[in-house]
């Protein structure tokens, strides 16, 4: 398939698939999702090269009848594989009587949103060019300093799209293309080993790999010579954008998801309109940001993607919903229905709710000014701490190991520290937010945030 006619071809197959499904049961409701993606990945680590290129294709069918819903998926988008999914989903539905009284139909048709930014150059990227990119980045990192012992780089290019149709009359599709370069460096000095990474992921231009290897190497070297914190105490913590993005995603990014709200797992389920964070904090989820990596015209069930304000000057204003949970909650879908992102089997995942592109409204101070305004001691966390993703959405309690971490003392960034354990409660943290930087940065987690400064977390090191 070509990018230009991808939508037409997918929609045509969706139409055929739905027509077939109706012949199986003309009273049941059906939803058919098709996924198609060209993907090339090159990984070079210290001269070891691994590369792959292929086309991911898959389909998923949801069937609903008398308040029972089932899901089946299959690799491939041929009509035979779609039939297989229809047949499996129907077999599940017929073999047990399991009611979901809350189900009230699939997504109804609406005018789609906009696809994100696109450049044809990504479609034309060859594997040889990806190999060149990765090779140059590795070389740059290796040549930066003799203490850089390992450099690895992964460059990828992907393009494709998906289409959704259902028996409510909805038939929509969306396309996107993305290219990415990631590099990591390990600096070694005696028994001390410190790692760092850099990346460039974009949909609107070709990756800019120049300087990435050097930057990652520089960062890894800056972490050498780490000292022990030798304390168990409570200190202000300064979370640079890459660390802050993980904090946002694994806290509010989870607790505002409609399924957690409706199912009793979110501690902020009953707090709309209440101040749950410092008035300095405003967060939106923007499924229509042209450069956002998760921007599509429609979400994974065909609803238009939107921009939703979640926290407005500290006040909780809106949760994120798909059609199913929005109806239970007497709300509107926010266009956040998702399937697993950028995985080879994303079509295998039954729909769930996920933020698209989270954006934190920046303040005005740069990182140096934030550090300069810190009294006595603080901890500067430069990268996403280990273990944050395993935090508990229900309690908000977290404990993580910050590896790329520095001591701040009397307004100065001092020396790197050996890994420090940081723990506390996400939601209490939002109320103890001391400052927001102006250094708005896009991160790998599809979160755009500046530096955030929190008070009151326990640190052990």
């Amino acid at each position: 398939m070509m990018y230009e006619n991808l939508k037409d071809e997918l929609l045509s197959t969706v139409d055929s698939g739905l027509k077939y499904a109706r012949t199986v049961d003309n009273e049941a409701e059906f939803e058919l999702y098709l996924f198609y993606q060209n993907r090339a990945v090159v990984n070079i680590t210290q001269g070891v090269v691994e590369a792959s290129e292929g086309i991911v294709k898959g389909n998923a069918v949801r069937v609903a009848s008398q308040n029972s819903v089932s899901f089946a998926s299959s690799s491939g988008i041929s009509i035979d594989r779609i039939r297989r999914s229809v047949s499996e989903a129907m077999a599940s539905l017929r073999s047990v009587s399991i009611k979901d009284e809350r189900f009230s139909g699939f997504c109804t048709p609406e005018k789609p949103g906009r696809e994100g930014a696109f450049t044809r150059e990504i479609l034309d990227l060859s594997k040889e060019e990806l190999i060149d990119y990765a090779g140059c980045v590795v070389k740059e990192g290796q040549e930066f300093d003799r203490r850089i012992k390992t450099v690895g780089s992964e460059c990828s290019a992907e393009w494709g799209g998906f289409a959704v149709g259902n028996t409510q009359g909805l038939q929509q599709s969306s396309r996107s293309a993305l290219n990415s370069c990631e590099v990591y460096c390990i600096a070694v000095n005696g028994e001390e080993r410190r790692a760092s990474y850099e990346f460039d992921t974009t949909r609107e231009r070709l990756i800019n790999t120049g300087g990435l290897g050097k930057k990652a190497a520089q960062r890894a070297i800056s972490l050498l010579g780490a000292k022990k914190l030798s304390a168990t105490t409570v200190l202000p913590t300064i979370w640079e954008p890459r660390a802050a993005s993980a904090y946002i995603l694994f806290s509010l990014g989870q607790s505002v998801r409609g399924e957690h709200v409706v199912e009793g797992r979110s501690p902020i389920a009953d707090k709309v309109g209440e101040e749950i964070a410092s008035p300095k904090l405003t967060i939106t989820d923007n499924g229509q940001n042209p450069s956002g990596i998760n921007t599509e015209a429609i979400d994974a069930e065909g609803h238009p993607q939107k921009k939703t304000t979640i926290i407005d000057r500290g006040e909780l204003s809106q949760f994120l919903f798909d059609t199913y949970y929005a109806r239970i909650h007497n709300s509107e879908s926010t266009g956040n229905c998702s399937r697993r992102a950028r995985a080879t089997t994303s079509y295998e995942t039954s729909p769930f709710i996920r933020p698209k592109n989270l954006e934190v409204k920046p303040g005005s101070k740069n990182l140096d000014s934030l550090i300069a305004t810190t009294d006595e001691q603080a901890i500067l966390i430069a990268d996403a701490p280990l273990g944050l993703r395993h935090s508990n959405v229900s309690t908000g309690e977290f404990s993580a190991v910050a590896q790329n971490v520095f001591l701040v003392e009397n307004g100065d960034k001092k020396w790197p520290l050996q890994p420090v354990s940081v723990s506390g409660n996400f939601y209490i943290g939002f109320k103890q937010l001391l400052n927001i930087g102006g250094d708005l940065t896009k991160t790998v987690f599809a979160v755009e945030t500046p530096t955030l400064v929190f008070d009151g977390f326990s640190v052990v090191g």
Partner: protein
Amino acid sequence: MLEKLEKCVESGEKMGARFVEARFDDLILRTLQRVNDVWKDIVLRSRIGIGVVCYHGGASGYSFTPSDDERELEKAVNRAVKVAKASAKVASLKLDFDRRPPVKSQESDTFPLKIHPRSEDLSYKTDLVNRAIDTAREFGIGISNIRGMYGELYGRKLFTNSEGSVIDWNFEVIELGCRVTSKTESGDLVNATGEAGGTMGLELFKTKGSTPEDIGKEAGSCAKEQLKAKACPAGRFRTLIENELAGVLAHESFGHLSEGDSVVVGESPLAGKIGTRLGTDQATIVDYGTPNISEYGGLWVPYDDQGTRSNETTILDKGMLKHYLHNRGTAHYLKQEPTGNCRAVNFGFIPIPRMTNTYFAPGELTKEEALELLNTGVYAIQASGGQVGEDGSFLFKATRGYWVQNGRIKEPIREVSLSGNILNLLSRVEGATKDLRISAGYFGGCGKNGQFLLPCGLGGPELVIDEVVFGGSASEE
């Protein structure tokens, strides 16, 4: 299908590949999930596809297709060969390997299940979930959310290569789990889980300790106990970690560092340390694809996705580093034997060095002796996630725990996190109990290089370790 795979190998060789591997997966994955009184997921996935690896000039190229159409297969082979040739031009560290005699599988390589999941209908499985949830409700209080999950993954894996190996076996894993979230009087939410799984038939859920009622009871009663639990203090404490957590430690923090691909490029701190003492005599870590499942539990992986028979590999032997976990290329480069650890999460990915069942070997202590050795500290129970850094730093979550004073279990504590550096920690392992348990299941799994949720087994005995860092609440100094 074997003929089609053999044709892929032949085509790849004709196009100039030095060595070709072709594999076919035809797998069924079923997930059932009930949240409170609503069936959230009744899901069946058919994962069918073919993957082709071509080797050329010390580099590899990979491609795949969900189709078994001959033209599609030819295109996939063509892509794999071209990618391998382009990669070979820039590969400065070559991972070639020697040819070996062909490997032929036997019918007995598939683990025999008494009650195969496909032999029971859907209502049998929904009933398992319902029974677990009903029992959890009976034993829990203040429940705000309850979730029951059943999963099964089974199907054919077929492999051939340029040596003429033919490996044909069935992968099988099941799991039943229950998770309870309860609300304390002050409005805090606490969690507890119960689960059982591995490469077993549905007879597992008829055995003592693994019935739906046992699983529900554990989740419900532990959540109830958590309502009164206190937060774990922050700081360094002696600890007794139970079997599953020991497994997470073996897998996440040590197992990944022993994988050959990270060793050959110097990324792992274990590179160049074969024969070096890294831990105490009590620390022995093994990876084994075909453990005694009926006795210890675990996952059955008789062959890897590169056609190598799985091995019992002692990675760390009484504290000494003995072996890494390999694919054929890393084994050849590091002059060790292949270990059968080259696995892919699905046909869309190239196989890479991964673990099978990774566990600490058991020791001599009874549970009482272990508590006595611990004396005062934290007894950490059940894993709920973990992550590890390239330098050996790790952080794991224990779902719950107890504070132990003078060898006696005192009060329950809430979810705790353990952190540190594995290479330091291994030198502080003071003792291990006699009981080896290996956990495996359908839900969750291992993630590496974008290949997420590969089923793995992990386990061990209970381990007494000195000076583990616990996150928690610190008082202001």
